[in-house]
């Protein structure tokens, strides 16, 4: 395990209101690894992902990125991490491509060619020029995946990435993740069922 690029979570305790949602969660994710966070509804999967992101404050424990506590330099951590949540963060009144350009442009300097390439990669070429309000949930989900492709982040965080996707869509998610892992990235994903990825690089965490 190379110390330089690990995400570690130690003794994490998080309360939501008076509910003790995360009770002493521990894990470490290294380059090329996928962490699948499983659990029933309400078990705390979303809370865990959002705590790792730094959005939610943990009462106890720490989240470390490259050996440093995440909250010590949140901006640097965010620069290397990208998150796709339940909502796709897509604007209904923009086209798919416009959405990608703006969303990716928030983090990186992106050319139009790169946007088009990302759209092609997720198989959304047919409808990326249409207004997002006219698209189905599955189509929007694919566009959201394209966003993370353009982010240039090392660490990908997903909250149920395969929602609204059919079998082909789920296979797409699997292949995107596999490629990312192969090129030295890391993925943490909250899932209901296993992702379609080769199991040898997968760690599982069950929240009950």
């Amino acid at each position: 395990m190379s110390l330089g690029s690990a995400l570690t979570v130690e003794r994490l305790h998080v309360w939501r209101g008076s509910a003790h949602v995360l009770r002493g969660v521990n894990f470490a994710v290294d380059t090329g690894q996928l962490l699948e966070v499983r659990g029933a509804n309400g078990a705390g999967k979303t809370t865990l992902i959002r705590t790792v992101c730094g959005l939610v404050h943990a009462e106890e424990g720490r989240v470390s990125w490259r050996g440093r506590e995440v909250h010590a330099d949140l901006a640097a951590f965010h620069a290397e991490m990208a998150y796709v949540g339940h909502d796709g963060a897509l604007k209904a009144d923009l086209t798919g491509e416009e959405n990608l350009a703006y969303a990716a442009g928030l983090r990186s300097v992106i050319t139009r060619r790169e946007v088009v390439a990302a759209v092609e990669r997720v198989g959304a070429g047919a409808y990326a020029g249409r207004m997002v309000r006219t698209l189905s949930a599955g189509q929007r989900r694919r566009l959201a995946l394209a966003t993370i492709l353009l982010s240039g982040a090392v660490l990908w965080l997903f909250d149920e990435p395969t929602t609204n996707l059919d079998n082909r869509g789920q296979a797409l998610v699997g292949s995107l993740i596999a490629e990312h892992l192969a090129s030295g990235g890391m993925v943490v994903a909250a899932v209901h069922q296993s992702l379609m990825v080769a199991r040898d690089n997968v760690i599982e965490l069950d929240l009950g």
Partner: protein
Amino acid sequence: MKPLPLTAEPSGVDGVCLTPRRASSWQAATRVFLRDLKLAFRKRGQLIQPIAFFIIVTAMFPLAFTPELTRLREVAPGVLWVSALLASLLALEFLFRDDREDGTLEQYALSGHSLTGLLFAKTCVHWLLTGLPLALVAPLMGGALGVPIEAMPGILAALLLGTVSLSVIGAIGAALTLGVKRGGVLLSLLTLPLAVPVMIFGARATELAIRGVDAAAPLYLLGAITVLGLTLGPIAAAAAVRISLE
């Protein structure tokens, strides 16, 4: 300078370099600014609403009071400012709401850039589309209330400063009430007391302008509040947004 993720090499995505240049905070804020502008113009019909509201409310006063211009001129400062205040409050509800609902606000907080700067960009767009038109229309409505033409530049100046203040103060209220269902009335309840100084100085400046007297003193005071609001307001709004995302 934070190190770029050098571990990721371009993978199988043709033509996409997966280690793109990191955008600066300024570039990110510009993206937010342009996106909000574009979105606003996609819904062109809604752009006119704050001004329409302002005009209607201002027109209510003569109907409720008197048609005599000499008497209307006396109450014109108050009427213009209360109407501008109400129109601004109405528009503030939507400053952050859409972004919160579709997850965009979350992405701003996770972008690695200063949330204060990004929210400031949003507030700028909001002012350009609400406050600025209000300030431009106000002298005309003043004319409808019997205000002489010589007073109009003064009214414009006062309302330009005042609407900027209202936008930044209102942004704080809008951020705080993000977690509240139907928070529109609560937003007004929170923002109005904080807007009292703006209104006092602004209305006084307007009154002096109408009387043809030098309005420098209240304008300077209004300017001071505006500067204070511009520097501290977005910070408070960012803190409130982060709290609502927890």
